[in-house]
């Protein structure tokens, strides 16, 4: 599918194989929900076209004007909130999809019971949504979406509104039901992307800034957002023989990542390294092959059992003892030193 929504500066193209799950990540307001609304038919894009298995969802390219109504698309939506119909029992909620497709009441209820059992909510069928906990309601909502037999499942941060005890259960459930199913899941959680998705796309400002297999995107991020997700420092620039050169003329030495496609000098590239590979010194330490950057400390925060030092757009992890020895405070000038061997360089 390909679609643009002018009013929101949204311009995204996306393809999904059968049985493939794609995670959509990105900062707030990047257009993630817009993407789902466009696929589901709740928002009409200004131009573009989309189809599922040959069925045209919309075709609004020059001259054409095909628009399939949401109820004919087979794209069930699961939102952050379960949005169970409050006037129907859990069972009737799940039976709603089959009933709408014209299945007789009795058959629809049997199918609903089957799906409720599949999400470990078999005993909740008679309850009203108001009598369910958040996690239970979301499981019933999953059953309701699946019972509609969708060709594609759209999940908009399904775990975001759940408490920390209910989320792991739902994540396991989604892993089970998403296997072999075509789905798009919006998430802020790296764990969701790793566990549930085959591929990840990063949306920023209405455009895809990064796409690829989940593991690869997290290991070799090219966008600041993806680097932030995997907790890596990322320095963009152009490739040189020894590493990269930033726009400001700073040289970063590193090793060419052998798993990534090799890049030619002069091509845009990035250098990535984990905060744990960064040492903090008060004086410029020489010794090759090393990178040493003079930076001003902006923030200090607790990060696990380490202190994360943020300076010059990079992060370093030091032990609390080391932090105390150095007397680190925001505003202080220090040197971030990184061994070249710890810096991965690859084309952007």
């Amino acid at each position, binding site marked *: 599918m390909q679609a643009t929504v002018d009013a929101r500066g949204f311009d995204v193209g996306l393809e999904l194989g059968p049985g493939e799950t794609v995670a959509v990540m990105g900062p707030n307001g990047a257009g993630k929900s*817009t993407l789902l609304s466009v696929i589901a038919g709740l928002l009409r894009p200004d131009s573009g076209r989309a189809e599922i298995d040959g069925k045209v969802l919309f075709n609004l390219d020059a001259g054409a004007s095909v628009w399939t*109504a949401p109820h004919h698309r087979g794209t069930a939506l699961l939102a952050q909130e379960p949005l169970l*119909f409050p006037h129907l029992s859990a069972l009737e909620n799940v039976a709603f999809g089959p009933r709408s497709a014209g299945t007789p009441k009795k058959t629809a209820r049997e199918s609903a019971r089957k799906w409720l059992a599949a999400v470990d909510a078999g005993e909740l069928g008679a309850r009203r949504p108001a009598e369910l906990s958040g996690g239970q309601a979301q499981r019933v909502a999953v059953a309701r979406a699946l019972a509609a037999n969708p060709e594609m499942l759209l999940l908009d941060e399904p775990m975001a509104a759940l408490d920390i005890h209910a989320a792991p259960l739902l994540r396991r459930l989604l892993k089970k039901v998403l296997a072999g199913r075509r789905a798009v899941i919006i998430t802020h959680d790296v764990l969701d992307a790793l566990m549930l998705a085959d591929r990840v796309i990063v949306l920023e400002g209405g455009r895809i800034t990064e796409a690829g297999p989940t593991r690869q995107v997290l290991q070799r991020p090219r966008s600041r957002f993806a680097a932030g997700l995997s907790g890596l420092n990322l320095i963009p620039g152009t490739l040189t023989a020894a590493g990269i050169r930033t726009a400001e003329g700073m040289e970063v030495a590193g090793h060419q990542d052998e798993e990534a496609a090799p890049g030619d000098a002069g091509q845009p590239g990035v250098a990535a390294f984990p905060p744990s590979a960064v040492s903090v010194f008060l004086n410029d330490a020489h010794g090759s092959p090393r990178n040493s950057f003079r930076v001003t400390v902006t923030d200090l925060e607790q990060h696990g059992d380490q202190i994360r030092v943020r300076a010059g757009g990079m992060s370093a992890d030091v032990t609390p003892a080391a932090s105390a020895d150095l007397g680190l405070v925001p505003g202080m000038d220090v040197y971030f030193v990184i061994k070249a061997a710890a810096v991965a360089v690859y084309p952007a």
Partner: protein
Amino acid sequence: MQQSRAGGYHGIPCWIYAVAAAGALFVLLPLAAMAARVNWPQFIPLVTSESSLTALGLSLRTSAASTALCIVFGVPLALVLARSRFRGQQLLRAFVLLPLVLPPVVGGIALLYTFGRQGLLGRSLEAAGLQIAFSTTAVVLAQTFVALPFLVVSLEGALRTAGERFEAVAATLGARPTTVLRRVTVPLVLPGLASGAVLSFARSLGEFGATLTFAGSLQGVTRTLPLEIYLQRETDADAAVALSLVLVAVAVTVVGLTYRRHGQTGRASAASPGARLDGRQ
């Protein structure tokens, strides 16, 4: 600082209570004054006189019919106003609500020039053998005209409170728009629809000006209870007061029903927090 019984802070200054009490008295005192003037020994005979019972029966029948008409036309109107976006929507809303602020006599005159013998539609209707003005049908039309805004306003509010998110989910589950309306939208706003219908019924029951202008005052045909009261006032004040009290009793019952419904509305709308599905970020 004021603490309400529930324990939460409500921030109402003390003097507000005094003004509110004066306002309440302004409504209650005339009712009490009227009740004090009722000729109690004669109450039952006055209220059960033939003309009174005929008027009451006519009032209840026509109000029920106009409430039904309000639902038939008001539900689609409220849906269109609450759910769709089109040019002139504000204008349409203003015109639908106009009868709320229009003097009923003006409404009656307008109806007369529409459905009357020489009216816009009346001439064609007359050719088809239908005479509406000064018939029971005219009473129902006059009441529908003034009562329709009440239903549209309450239902539009209920629809906006319920939001479109449940409807969007229902559509992605494969429900056709008519199915969504029948199985999701209407059940969700049922309390609002009920209170709107009750208010319309109450407004129909009290309708006077438009009815008198458009339907006249024929006993058993168009003379509803308010018209009967006005007529009796000229000749038999006791009967007028007694009938007024009956109308007050009916109105209080209806308002009581509405308030019970309102409690349920609150519960239903509490179940729909936030807004994400309508495509906003």
